[in-house]
């Protein structure tokens, strides 16, 4: 349980470890994209952590990294094919960021740092924790960006081909609120991630100074 909490708060991949920022900035234009990406990464992370912690003793150190990448790439390809078949709209929206999960620093980073060192149970738990942390972080960024930048919030739109359910809302009344469109642009993404990172770390440390 503590491992999971650790993954969400003290070692949150986006706000503390600063990993996987590329997909964070690009994907979080809609709330739906964010949590779907989060789920994808979590699934890949858990399975890859599990597999790697099972077999890491069998892999010679010199070929460690390439082998991990092969494992992760295989998982991502499976995920890609599944999404392509079952949820084509999401597949189109993600575009290149789906294959880029392979080189998402979180997965390879955790593989090298945790999965190859801890036992199977701990690795899996770590995968769950980090994955949830990543998903929550992405959801937070996407909420800010979409609500303030576009005046909508999308719970389910592209997935509707899968679930048959659509849910998009306008948040503020249109006359009173002018959306800040720059938040949807990449510059706004950096700004939002930066500000949320500052707030998150300030609350986490509770005002105490921490050397990096």
């Amino acid at each position, binding site marked *: 349980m503590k491992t999971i909490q650790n993954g969400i708060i003290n070692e949150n991949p986006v706000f503390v470890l600063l990993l996987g920022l590329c997909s964070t900035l690009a994907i979080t234009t809609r709330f739906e994209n964010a949590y779907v990406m989060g789920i994808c990464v979590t699934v890949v992370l858990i399975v890859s952590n599990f597999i790697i912690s099972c077999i890491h003793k069998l892999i010679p150190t010199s070929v460690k990294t390439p082998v991990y990448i092969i494992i992760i790439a295989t998982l991502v390809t499976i995920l890609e094919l599944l999404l392509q078949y079952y949820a084509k709209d999401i597949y189109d929206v993600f575009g290149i960021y789906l294959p880029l999960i392979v080189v998402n620093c979180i997965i390879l980073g955790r593989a090298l740092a945790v999965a190859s060192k801890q036992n199977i149970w701990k690795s899996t738990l770590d995968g769950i924790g980090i994955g949830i942390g990543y998903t929550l972080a992405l959801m937070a960024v996407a909420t800010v960006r979409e609500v303030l930048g576009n005046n909508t919030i999308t719970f389910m739109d592209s997935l509707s081909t899968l679930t048959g359910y659509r849910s998009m809302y306008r948040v503020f009344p249109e006359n009173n609120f*002018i959306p*800040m*469109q*720059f938040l949807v642009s990449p510059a706004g993404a950096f*700004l939002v991630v930066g500000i949320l990172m500052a707030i998150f770390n300030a609350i986490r440390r509770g005002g105490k100074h921490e050397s990096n």
Partner: protein
Amino acid sequence: MKDYHNLIGPFQKSKNKTSTMMKHVLIALIPIIIFSFYKNGIVPYQHHLVDIWGLWYPIIFIAIGPIVTCLVELIAARFFLHKKNNDLKDYMQHSYAILPGLFLSLILPIHTPISVLIFGVCMATIIGKLVYGGFGNNIFNPALIGRLFVITTYATVIASKGGYLNSYELDTISKATPLSNVSTIEGIGSYETLVSPYGNLWNFFTGMIPGAVGETSALLCLVAFFYLTFQKVIKWRIPVFYIGTVWILTMLIGWLNGLGIWYPTFQILSGGLFFGAIFMATDPVTSPVSKNAQILDGIFLGILTVVFRYFTSYPEGVLTSILTMNMLVFVVEKIGLQCKQKDKRLVIIAVILVIMGFVAYQAGRLYQNHGESKDSNFEVINVKKVENQVIYTVSQKGNGGPITCEVTIQNDKIIKIEVIDHNETPNYYGLVENQHYIEQLIKEQDNLSELDTVSGATISSTALKKLAINTLQEYEESYEK
């Protein structure tokens, strides 16, 4: 006798104080504030275009900026930095929070909604100043950061409420601010198209032209500049070299296109260049300290502004150049240190001259070919010949997209223009219709370039005018060979 051993000298100090320097800046701004009140409050009120609330609105607008900045800093100091009582008072006295807020109010358009102003002020204080550690530690000019946020986020809102033009100007002057006007002119323009719509160059100099709340009056900025230089408060090399470089470059550009000395004067007096150069670029915290570096800073600012004005359609030339050079201050300082050695100095001067020459030449040449090339915003969709008439279906880029029209030409003259499709804002297009602009176009088709556009719907009416001109030109080239 008390032991005063090892006190640190010197024991004679000058009477300079940071607070005195800031006071001088505030004093220098007072004439500008009064002028802004006159231009945006009193003049419209005299012409009965606004009520008593509109009379005092500029003063309120200018006052809100500094008040909100102080509040934001106070809240930040009290709750985030946990300063109390004397510490807090000392902090507030030495953070000089008033100035960024005041500057921000002065460089925003008059029709900025108050909520947007407050948003801009918060962004300016928080992201422009506090994030870096407060007064003295910021890299970027906070007022410019605030304006950047306001313009990128709320440009359309402000434009829809009237933009930069106050009520009097909306009524009398039919075009937008001088630099937006430049972007609608084909080619490099002439005295009649660039300057005359606003009066003459003296109007530009005193500031009776459309612009932001406080940045139009070059005369008052000059007065402030001399006052501040006399009081030894300002880094005078920066504005001198900034404005000088822009003047020289635009003079070269104008000379390449056969324009007289009014052209560089027009360029330096528009776009709020004087205000930006004298108050924003010389902000002590964000500008270089050594003499050579200040000269280089001014020159690079000038080059950047000219590049932004001529090679891009981005409207905020002065703002972007100043922010870019804020970022590059440490580079300029290093170059300035190298400048002290005679041989390196010559190399640097040569490089700068080459860059300036290159920029001027390229910008000048842009317009030399323009007269002959076709307007890229104009498109011929269809040509139909019916008996003795030629019916063109053409489109011209307007404000919101292409305006598609059917133009019927008979006996070498346009007899009918029918608008098939447009994406113009209904408010603006309504003005065009009310003025029966299309009838005017047909009536004045021999002298189309002299025809006025509709005030308040500049871009839409200009598009229609250009459509008529270009259709006629197309007809001439095809049929009158």
